[in-house]
């Protein structure tokens, strides 16, 4: 008899979701659906508001990566003003954006995912969390907490507060970097660099332990999308769009971000509040692609900082062509942390970094603005239209987690087929299905621009909807 298993909610992710696994008559997984169960409506309630409010308004989409939304919104507003922001403002925004990448990756890797890696997927869920890690691997847990704190502190030093700073404004930033702040940030960097390197060494040494997961966790061919520098280097703040296929062939290159709609389109499914972006050239649902750390490291020709370049070369040697397993999002995250710290240090050494000219002033000069940046979880796109008085008439956001929606669904299906034995629910199976989602570090509040709450439970249902078995947590 066909049955359904529901994992609800998915834990240790940012946001609220549930997973439904459909089993056929033989207890084999026939389909898997990742439902995002929250709805918020950011694109609607900003209508009628002045464009100058957009960065702060849109930053409220998320408390984990508000800086990414600030950056994308500010860039869209720069376009509405039709200004080139002062070079120092560009560099300062980059520092804050990289600090955000470092802190968010640290949260994802250490706080949310390291318990699975350290304790094992089958460990007791009561211990398989950051507190369990603190007990058994205190150094690693402390490193993670410290690294996240450093990223957050840099954001606070620049913007005045850790979450939702109002420092990034249309036309630049609203306060230059003072010598004191420069010194404060500089002092934090060597420690961050040390932690990033130490963690990478540890992770690589233990990589072989996770070979089964690496083989089964979202290990399938997809396209990859992200921003690159004009020379094909790693880019998080500005840059041009590139798409590569599963063999590493570049299919779209140096596409100005404003032309994103030439490459992708969005589909809607009734079971989820999260939209399904897909590559236009391939159609829906074949146009599956991934974004985020793994995608970024798969599309580039080089990283751009010495230490991260070395690590990247090693990373790419794991696989001929792009690294396909979503398990390696974790690995990619660690390399990006290293890059972020190195790049912040380079930017701090820039001779103009303390220039007082950090804001271009102008009135709205265009009807439409598009801001595209790389958030920790991948490419985010903010697209606004305004009226003649500078009030927003229309907004569209495509968020990193949204791009990965098709890939996450397929990843869940793959893991479920590999690990789920349809006859009964085992804790380790449940966690592996969740863990594949965790690889993508989805931020569902961002992706749906939404809110909601779900109790944790898995249900086994018959084809008629009858409850056969359930597990609560």
């Amino acid at each position, binding site marked *: 008899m066909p049955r359904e298993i529901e994992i609800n909610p998915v834990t240790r992710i940012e946001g609220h979701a549930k997973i439904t696994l459909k089993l056929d008559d033989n207890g084999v997984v026939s389909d898997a659906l990742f439902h995002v169960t929250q709805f918020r409506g950011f694109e609607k309630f900003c209508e*009628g*508001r*002045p464009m*100058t*409010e957009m*960065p*702060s*308004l849109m930053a*409220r989409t998320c408390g984990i990566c508000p800086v990414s939304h600030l950056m994308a919104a500010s860039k869209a507003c720069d376009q509405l003003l039709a200004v080139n922001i002062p070079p120092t403002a560009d560099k300062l925004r980059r520092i804050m954006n990289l600090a955000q990448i470092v802190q968010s990756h640290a949260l994802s890797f250490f706080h949310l995912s390291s318990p699975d890696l350290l304790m094992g997927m089958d460990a007791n869920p009561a211990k398989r969390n950051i507190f369990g890690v603190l007990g058994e691997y205190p150094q690693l847990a402390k490193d993670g907490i410290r690294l996240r704190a450093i990223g957050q502190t840099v954001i606070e030093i620049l913007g005045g507060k850790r979450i*939702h700073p*109002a420092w990034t*404004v*249309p036309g630049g930033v*609203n306060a230059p970097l003072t010598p004191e702040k420069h010194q404060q940030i500089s002092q934090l960097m060597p420690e961050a660099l040390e932690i990033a390197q130490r963690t990478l060494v540890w992770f690589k040494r233990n990589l072989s332990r996770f070979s089964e997961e690496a083989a089964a966790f979202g290990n399938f061919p997809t396209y990859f999308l992200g921003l690159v520098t004009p020379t094909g280097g790693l880019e998080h703040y500005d840059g041009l769009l590139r798409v590569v296929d599963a063999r590493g062939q570049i299919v779209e290159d140096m596409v100005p971000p404003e032309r994103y709609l030439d490459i992708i389109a969005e589909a809607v499914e009734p079971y989820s509040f999260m939209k399904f972006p897909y590559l236009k050239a391939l159609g829906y649902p074949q146009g599956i692609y991934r974004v985020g750390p793994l995608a970024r490291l798969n599309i580039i020709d080089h990283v751009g900082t010495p230490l991260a370049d070395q690590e990247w070369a090693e990373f790419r040697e794991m696989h001929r062509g792009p690294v396909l397993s979503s398990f390696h999002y974790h690995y990619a995250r660690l390399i990006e942390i290293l890059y972020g710290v190195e790049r912040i240090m380079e930017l701090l050494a820039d001779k103009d970094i303390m220039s007082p000219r950090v804001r271009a*002033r102008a*009135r709205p000069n265009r009807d439409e603005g598009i801001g595209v940046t790389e958030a920790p979880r991948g490419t985010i796109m903010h697209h606004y239209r305004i009226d003649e*008085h*500078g*009030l927003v008439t229309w907004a569209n956001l495509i968020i990193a987690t949204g791009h990965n929606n098709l890939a996450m669904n397929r990843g869940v299906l793959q893991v479920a087929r590999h690990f789920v034995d349809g006859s009964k629910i085992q804790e380790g199976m449940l966690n592996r299905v969740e863990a594949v989602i965790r690889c993508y570090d989805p931020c569902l509040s961002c992706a749906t621009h939404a809110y909601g709450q779900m109790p944790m439970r898995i249900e086994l249902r018959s084809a008629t909807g009858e409850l056969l078995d359930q597990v609560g947590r």
Partner: protein
Amino acid sequence: MTRPSVPKPAGVAQPQVVTLRIDGRDVSARSDETILSVARQNRIDIPTLCYLDGLSGWGACRLCLVDIKGTPKLLPACVTLVREGMEVTTDSPRLQKYRRMVLELLFSERNHVCSVCVSNGKCELQAMAQRLGMTHVSLPYRYPRLEFDSSNDLFRMDHNRCILCTRCVRVCDEIEGAHTWDCRGRGIETRIISDLNEPWGESSTCTRCGKCVNVCPTGALSQKGTAVAEMTKRVTFLPYLTLMRNSDEP
């Protein structure tokens, strides 16, 4: 809108000197002074939002309500004149409760979203809520759909943040002499309008002086181009202007 100016004694009679008690302290004052003015001269601070030194009293916000012995009603200190032998209480649990209620009503009436407001951190309404210990709004929010007038070249009006204090109306009329602003409607439907309810940018009377923006206690009136928490109001010009005007009087 008719302005209830502070009543003055008829004729040319010189104001009398009166003595009264405010919060148990004996104070003396001129009979044409308000309770608020006498209290502040004696360093007794009564919270206000619509009152502004240099403009006429209006009595709109009701935050300055005080208790007067022998009077069953609470009276606004900004428009109530002192009297001989008055006994005034400016602070009590009852008054604090009413003041907090006034603030809760203001917050629930329109869309005061501090976190994304141009005046965040520099707002008199926000500061007053902190000062009076308004920790939450117990009334349901109304979430009205209100317009945002961005038609003026220099300034903008966000009706979502307006508390109808009418400082803009008074400064425009009494100081600038343009009387661009006024009120239409009644009660909760009242709106500040420019000229005969035309977009501000199309007003033929507005001189673009910006006085209204600077006296506005919230983020309702702001300079164009300011982002969140960037709007700093300057009201120091007002006492100088009124001083100069009054010194010209015969």
